[in-house]
C-alpha cells in the first residue's frame, strides 16, 4: 500500500502533524517553565528557575502529594490483589453468567466519573464515614480495579497452561504451581495494571473532590486550585517535573516488562 507515492505522502504528513499536536502543549509547558516572566508568554524572554523554587508556594503541596501517593499505592495495591483472583476465575473457571460479571466489574470505567463521586459521597454520609482516608481509598478502588483486571486477563490469555499441568503432574501442590509458574507469567500484566491503576488514582480529581475535606486533600485538587487562582507559570514547573518522572517510569516499565506490547495486544 505504501508503495503508492501519493498515499505515502498523505499518511506521512497527516500522521506527523498529529504527533506534533500531541506533543506541542507538553513542549511548550517545559519551555514556559524556564521563562522569567510573571505571566505565561511565548516566545520566552528571559531564563529563570524561580518557578521551580516557587512550587512550594502551592498550598499544602507537600502533604497533598504524600496523601495522593499513599492513597494511590493502597488503592492500586488492593485493586491488583483483587484483580488477580478475579481474572484467574474469569479466564480459567467455567462459571455461569461470566459475561455479566465481567461487564459489571469493568463498567465503572465507562460511567461518568462524577457519577461515582456523587453516588459515593451520599453513601458515605449515610454510613457516617465521609471524609475519611479509607473512604477515599475505597472510592478509588471502584474506579481503577478494571485496569488490572484487563491487563491480567491479557497476560493470562497469553500464558501457557501446559507448564502448570506439567508442574502439577510432577507433584507440585496448587499453591506451589501458582507461586512458581502462574505468578511469574502474570508479571507484565500485574506490573502494567498496577502502574496504570496507580497513575489514574494519583491523578483523580472528579471522585476525590467529593470525598475530601479540610486536611484530607490530594495533589490534583491543590494544583487545580492553584491554577484557577493564579496566572504565574508555577504549575508549568510542576508539570515539567511530573512529565519527566512519568516518562522515566513508563520507559523503565517498557524496557523491563514490555507493557506497550501487552496493551496493543501483540
Amino acid at each position, binding site marked *: *500500500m505504501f508503495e*503508492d507515492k501519493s*498515499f*505515502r505522502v498523505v499518511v506521512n504528513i497527516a500522521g506527523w502533524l*498529529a*504527533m506534533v499536536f*500531541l506533543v*506541542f502543549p*507538553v513542549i*511548550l*509547558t517545559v519551555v514556559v517553565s524556564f521563562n522569567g516572566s510573571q505571566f*505565561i*508568554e*511565548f*516566545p520566552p524572554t528571559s531564563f529563570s528557575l524561580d518557578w521551580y523554587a516557587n512550587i512550594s508556594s502551592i498550598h499544602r503541596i507537600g502533604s497533598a502529594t504524600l496523601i495522593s501517593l499513599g492513597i494511590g499505592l493502597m488503592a492500586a495495591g488492593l485493586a491488583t490483589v*483483587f484483580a*488477580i*483472583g*478475579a481474572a*484467574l*476465575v474469569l479466564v480459567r473457571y467455567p*462459571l455461569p453468567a461470566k459475561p455479566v*460479571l465481567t461487564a459489571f*466489574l469493568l463498567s465503572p470505567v465507562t*460511567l*461518568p*466519573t462524577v*457519577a461515582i*463521586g*456523587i*453516588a*459515593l459521597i*451520599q*453513601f458515605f454520609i449515610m454510613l457516617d464515614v465521609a471524609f475519611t482516608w479509607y473512604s477515599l481509598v475505597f*472510592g478509588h*478502588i471502584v474506579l481503577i480495579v478494571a485496569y488490572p483486571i484487563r491487563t491480567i486477563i491479557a497476560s493470562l490469555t497469553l500464558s501457557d497452561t501446559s507448564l502448570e499441568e506439567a508442574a502439577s503432574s510432577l507433584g507440585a501442590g496448587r499453591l506451589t504451581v501458582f507461586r512458581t509458574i502462574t505468578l511469574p507469567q502474570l508479571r507484565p500484566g500485574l506490573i502494567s495494571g498496577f*502502574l496504570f491503576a496507580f497513575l489514574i488514582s*494519583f*491523578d483523580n*480529581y*472528579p471522585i476525590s*473532590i467529593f470525598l475530601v475535606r479540610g486536611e484530607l486533600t490530594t495533589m*490534583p485538587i491543590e*494544583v*487545580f486550585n492553584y*491554577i*484557577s487562582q493564579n496566572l504565574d507559570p508555577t*504549575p508549568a514547573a510542576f*508539570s515539567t517535573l*511530573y512529565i519527566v518522572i*512519568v516518562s522515566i*517510569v*513508563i*520507559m523503565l516499565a*517498557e524496557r523491563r516488562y514490555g507493557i*506497550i506490547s501487552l*496493551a*496493543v*495486544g*501483540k
Partner: protein
Amino acid sequence: MSISIKRGRGRKYLPALVMLGPLIAFMFIFYAVPFGNMAYESLHSWPGDEKPHVGLSVFQYEKTTQKSRTVKSLKRTFRISIISTIITFIICFPITLLLLRSPPRIKVGILLVTFISLASSLIIRNYGWLVVLADAGPINNILIWLKIFEFPKRMAYSEGAIITALVHYCMPFMILPIYGSLLRIPASNAEASLSLGANAWTTLRRVILPLSMPGIFGGTMLSFAICMSSYVTPLMLGSPSTAMVSQVAAEQIEVQLNFPWGSAIIITLTLGSFLIVFIYAALVSKVMRVDV
C-alpha cells in the same frame, strides 16, 4: 443423590467463589449499593423545591428535562462529545497507519509518546492548553505576527478550547485500539486487493477500514464516553456559559446541597450516554456486518 450433586457443584465452584467473591462483594457494597441509593435519592423531593412532596416521584427528572440550564448543558455535552470524537478519529487514523509502516525504532518512539501522554496528569495536559491558548501564548503571537489580529484574542475559556483539549486527551484511547486491530489484519489482504488492481486509496477504503472496524468502534466509543463524562476539562478551559452536564450536577451537590436533583442530572447523563453507545454498537454491527 441430590446431595452428592450439590456437593460436587459446590466443590467445582469453590475456588471461583474464594477468588472472585471478595471483589464481587466489594463492588456490590461500594459500587452497586451507592448507585442504587443515588437512584433512590433522585426520586425524592428537596426541601428547597417549589412544591416539596412526600414519597417518590419523577419530579427531579422532569425538572432536568425542563430547566434551560440542564437542557442546554445536555445538548452542549452531546454536541462537544460528537465533534471531539470525530476530530479525534480523523487525527488519529493517520498515526496508526504511520505506526504500521514505520521501522521498529520509530514505532516504539511513537508508542512511548502515546503512553506517556496517557499516563500524564489530565490537569497538567489541560494546563498545557491554557499555555498554548494564553493571551501572550504562541498561537496569539503567530496570528498577530501574521497580521490576522491586531490584539491578542481570548481563545481559552471557550467551547473551542474544551474541544481541543478533549481531542488531545482522547488521542491515546483512539490510537491504541485501532493500531491493535490493524496489527491483526494479515498483510496478504492488502496485497490481494492491490494485485487485483485496486489502488492504495481504494484498498484503504474497501479493505483496511472495514477490517479495522472493531478497533475503530472501541476507540470512538471510549472517546465518546470520556467526552460525555468530562468534568475537569470544561472546568479548566471553559466558562460558566460553556458548562457541561457533570459540572451542573456537581454544582447542585457541592454548592446547593441539592442531592436529589444533582443525582437525577448525573443519572440522566449516564443513561443518555449508555443509550447512545448501545445504538452506535447496534448500527455498527448491522451496517458493517462485524461483531463489535
